[in-house]
């Protein structure tokens, strides 16, 4: 197969061959199995499994808790990025490094830790209890866990854009008489919006698929605190492969759409920067 390519450096054939081989084996083959299974089961059965009440509750729960978590991250992630880029304070390096913790920490560890903190006798759980709010084993707990896993996404997407922002534009606005808030609202925020949305979408995608940190804190009560990924595992434990495949297909469809959205957003963000 003759490929028209640009680049004189040697190694094209080898790197392409190995990459395609690896991807094929690790990614395409397993995914092919999923598609095969889905098609062998038949659309009707698949649809039925995918839309039973328990599944629908799971989708809905996954969706709104993920949106809540991603939104919290959008707001506070922006704040964090701002504070890290523009201000100095003691311990800033440590804070900056810690932002990546959800990336490096196993989800199971996060899961049990968050559960302990927010359980009724936990440090923060008891404080919430005093105002009559229960976190563990409720959707609120799920939202907390999903917020945790999404922290790095918004911060790390917005940080570089914020760093590259020119002083000049802000100074020009100030000279023209704009208050700091006006400058932020009219000049800075619009420039950050594309990357903010990208970070939000990434956090959302991550939250939708999250399992480890949620499975402990949620209690996994069907139709109440059972998210979609947990439901898939339950189905598998019951050897209901059809059911598992059905729900997985719905989730994959959603991920795919979200991925498309993220790509479009990144392209918009990159164009906005130039």
């Amino acid at each position, binding site marked *: 197969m003759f490929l028209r390519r640009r680049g004189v450096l040697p190694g094209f054939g080898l790197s392409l061959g190995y990459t395609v081989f690896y991807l094929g084996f690790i990614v395409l083959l397993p*995914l092919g*199995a999923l598609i095969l299974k889905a098609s062998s089961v038949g659309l009707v059965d698949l649809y039925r499994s995918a839309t039973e009440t328990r599944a629908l509750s799971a989708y809905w729960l996954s969706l709104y808790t993920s949106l809540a978590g991603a939104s919290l991250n959008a707001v506070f992630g922006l*704040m964090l990025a701002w504070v*890290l880029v523009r201000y100095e304070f003691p311990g800033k390096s440590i804070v900056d490094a*810690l932002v990546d913790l959800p990336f490096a920490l*196993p989800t199971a560890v996060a899961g049990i830790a968050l559960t302990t903190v927010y359980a009724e006798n936990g440090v923060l759980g008891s404080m919430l209890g005093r105002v009559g709010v229960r976190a563990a084993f409720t959707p609120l707990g799920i939202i907390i866990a999903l917020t945790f896993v999404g922290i790095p996404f918004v911060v790390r997407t917005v940080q570089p854009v914020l760093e590259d922002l020119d002083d000049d534009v802000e100074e020009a606005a100030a000279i023209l008489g704009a208050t700091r808030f006006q400058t932020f609202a009219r000049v800075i925020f619009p420039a950050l919006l594309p990357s903010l949305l990208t970070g939000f979408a990434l956090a959302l995608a991550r939250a939708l698929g999250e399992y480890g940190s949620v499975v402990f804190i949620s209690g996994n009560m069907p139709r109440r605190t059972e998210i979609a990924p947990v439901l898939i595992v339950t189905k598998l434990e019951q050897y209901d*492969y059809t059911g598992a495949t059905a729900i997985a297909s719905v989730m994959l469809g959603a991920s795919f759409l979200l991925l498309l959205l993220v790509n479009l957003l990144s392209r918009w963000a990159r164009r906005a920067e130039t």
Partner: protein
Amino acid sequence: MSGGVAGTFGRSTERRHRVREGRLLRGALIFGALSFLGIFLIAPLVTVFASAFAKGFGAYVTALSDPETVSAIELTLLAAGIAVPLNLVFGVAAAWLFAKYEFPGKNILLTLVDLPFSVSPVIAGLVFVLLFGAQGWLGPWLSAHDVRIIFAVPGIVLATIFVTFPMVAREVLAVMQSQGNDEEEAALTLGASGWQILFRVTLKKVRWGLLYGIILCNARAMGEFGAVSVVSGHIRGETNTMPLHVEILYNEYNFVAAFAVASLLAMLALVTLFIKKIAEWAAHARSDAAERAPLGEHSLSATVGSTPS
């Protein structure tokens, strides 16, 4: 995650902003941001260690020397020990491919590389079950040859590879792209072969991004829970990795033990972050020096004529 967390290797340094918001607002923002971090991130982190040592150092050590725990640690190390090197080779090959050439289908291939980031780990486990499980696609063939992948170690290794393979690739690719191809082309004109260019020039250039990619890949490989949970079958002492073992211990209300094992993983995560900071700092130091004003201009007033060769 398209875009990767890298790209910080080679960033510009701090800037002075003369137009600023008021002291009070600044303080409030810092407070808000740090409280957020405190509630969602620091509290759980501290809890891990607090709970692990709740019953004293002795209990901590006992928990960690339990044979099932040791076996879980061994399995985790094995899985990571296989996954990380494999993903490293792939990562370098893929980064080289995407950074140095243009070709049709490049975008599709890139999307495939990003796939594990956008797929739930549970689904990752599911697809392996569908492929290698008893009722899976290759199931019958495998049982006929008495090969067990699901509910056995190979399955765990495969799931781990799947979930972590983009990491090294993404980090290294980002660094390669920001550094450009000039040095490689120069090496080419000087007569270097492909391998020589790779080892003598490129790998040296990207070493900090590469290091971080490996460390991160390792942390994720050791900490993977969802995908491994699905394919392992949770057979104690046999197919339990550290994260799975943490789950079992926790569900048995053996909190100290659960957090003891968890603390090992948490320490690994902290070491990962620490190394990232160092790598960033080292990469900065190099690039800043290159941009700094040259050390003294030498005038070329010397006559060239009398130089012997």
